[in-house]
């Protein structure tokens, strides 16, 4: 990897939270507890990557993103985004990034979308020609014309997210942070947003860091995933390897051609049986081919299906 665009080293964030006083005590008497939201996370993200940042609620995803966008200062460790320390050079930093939080609108609520975009052109000092170019491109990719002259408050959630995505990219940021960009959207709206993210990554080399609970987002967009839990990195690598490494058992579903009193096969355990159908689980040490071979020696088979564990299962096992 050449010079990473995001580099975290032992990044840590702790918060002080007030505990409810127990029993009878004075109303202003409070005890404090230190909560570690992000616990010594180190990672590097290269230019042009699309990285999925996963973890259960409260794992520290948003806290990490807020530090990267300059909204939170770390308690310890170092963080550089495009060579800058985000919170120390907040204004220069935010000029080079785009941020979209799902369910949160950053456009002027009662202004037509187009006017908000025009205002952002001035705020980010985008050259007029470049702005016009971007606008044309995003109008096509996000179908902005459907609602461009309506105020943000009149848009559907899907339209609002499309408008916010356009707004986040008008100033050509090299880095885009997306915090649950497809939350609450229908399938069609989700697809459209995913297609757009793919397109701007391919076309402009925009680096994308994406948090989501919708694993289809990850499957369709990210080659690399980072999984965190309790503020620590649990996994950082290729999506395919995640399932291989943590996915647990695969399943083989067999439909027998005859009624057998007992079915068993070496290397797999019987999970369930219903009529002529049986489901076996088997680990990484056995191949499906070997199992099928053994089964067909002993029984007459009608049909077979092999099921890979999906990411959802994998994550459930990890959390």
């Amino acid at each position, binding site marked *: 990897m050449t010079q990473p665009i995001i580099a975290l080293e032992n990044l840590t964030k702790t*918060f002080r939270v007030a505990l409810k006083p127990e029993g009878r005590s004075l109303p202003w008497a409070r005890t404090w507890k230190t909560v570690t939201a992000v616990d010594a996370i180190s990672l590097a993200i290269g230019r042009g990557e699309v990285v999925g940042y996963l973890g259960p609620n409260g794992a520290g995803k948003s806290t990490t993103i807020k530090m990267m966008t300059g909204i*939170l*200062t770390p308690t310890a460790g170092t963080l550089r985004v495009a060579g800058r320390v985000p919170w120390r050079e*907040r204004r220069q930093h935010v000029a080079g990034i785009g941020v979209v939080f799902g369910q949160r609108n950053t456009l002027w609520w009662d202004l037509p979308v187009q006017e908000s975009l025009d205002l952002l052109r001035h705020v980010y000092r985008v050259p007029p020609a470049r702005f016009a170019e971007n606008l044309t491109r995003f109008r096509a990719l996000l179908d902005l014309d459907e609602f461009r002259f309506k105020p943000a408050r009149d848009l559907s959630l899907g339209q609002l997210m499309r408008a916010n995505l356009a707004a986040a990219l008008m100033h050509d940021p090299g880095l885009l942070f997306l915090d649950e960009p497809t939350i609450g959207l229908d399938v069609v709206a989700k697809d459209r947003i995913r297609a757009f993210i793919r397109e701007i990554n391919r076309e402009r080399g925009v680096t994308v860091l994406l948090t989501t609970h919708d694993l289809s987002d990850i499957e369709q967009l990210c080659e690399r995933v980072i999984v965190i839990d309790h503020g620590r990195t649990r996994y950082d690598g290729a999506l395919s390897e995640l399932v291989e490494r943590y996915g647990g058992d695969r399943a083989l579903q067999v439909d027998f051609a005859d009624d057998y009193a007992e079915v068993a096969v070496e290397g797999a355990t019987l999970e369930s049986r219903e009529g002529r159908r049986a489901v076996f689980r088997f680990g990484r040490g056995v191949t499906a081919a070997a199992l099928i071979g053994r089964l067909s020696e002993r029984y007459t088979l009608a049909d077979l299906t092999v099921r890979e564990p999906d990411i959802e299962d994998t994550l459930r096992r990890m959390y």
Partner: protein
Amino acid sequence: MNAYLALARASLARQFRYRGANLAGLITNFFFGVIRVSVMVALYNANPAAAPAGYDLAKAVTYLACAQAIIGWVALWGWWDLVRALKGGEVVADLQRPIDFFGLWAAQDFGRAIAQLFLRAIPIMLAFALVYPLVGPADIGQLLIFILSFALAWFLSFTWRFLFSILGFWVTDGTGFARLAIFSATFFTGFLMPLSLFPDALAGVLRWLPFAGMVATPLDVFSNALRGPEALVAVAVQAFWALALYALAQATFTAGVRRLTTQGG
């Protein structure tokens, strides 16, 4: 175009969209003004001798008409935009723009104020001028001082509103602070009654506080109650407080952001 100018212009245009609210505000401000002026007229008629030397009824009536007209310009009674943005967390989006936060909000409020000048201040003054004999700046010099003082009144009021609103960085809901600030503004600015009618000792103190510059100073200049050197001193006090409150606002904001970034929203 400059970003601040663009923001002000968009905000100005936005004000013109709320026709119903503007009309309602205009009517309310006007009729409350009529009541206040009527009370003042009754007081002067009941005991003409009690009026301070040189402060005649025309000045007092002009002052009250202006006080009603300036409501929309300084917006001291009911400006919740920033309080709400802090409570709702939209402020985070503002912090992610490469622009000075005070400037961002000031520009938008200036656009709002300019719109209110045309939608409220001028119509109210015209309406009062039809009903009552008003006085205006005595000469061109007085008029120029008034314009300066009037502009500073907006800046002071905005900075004051900005200040109490950003206390929301420290509390979950800044509404309480805002109410306290509105209450204090009503009394100390000279909105209720010309400072000239206050007891001398109290008026003397109030003239040196930042609040007089938000309402009383431009009104006294307009109605010629403050003239020449006296008017210039009053404007200088406004300018002093404008700088002081601005510095305080920026420092408070910096502290607020530090709290937000260390302790979270």
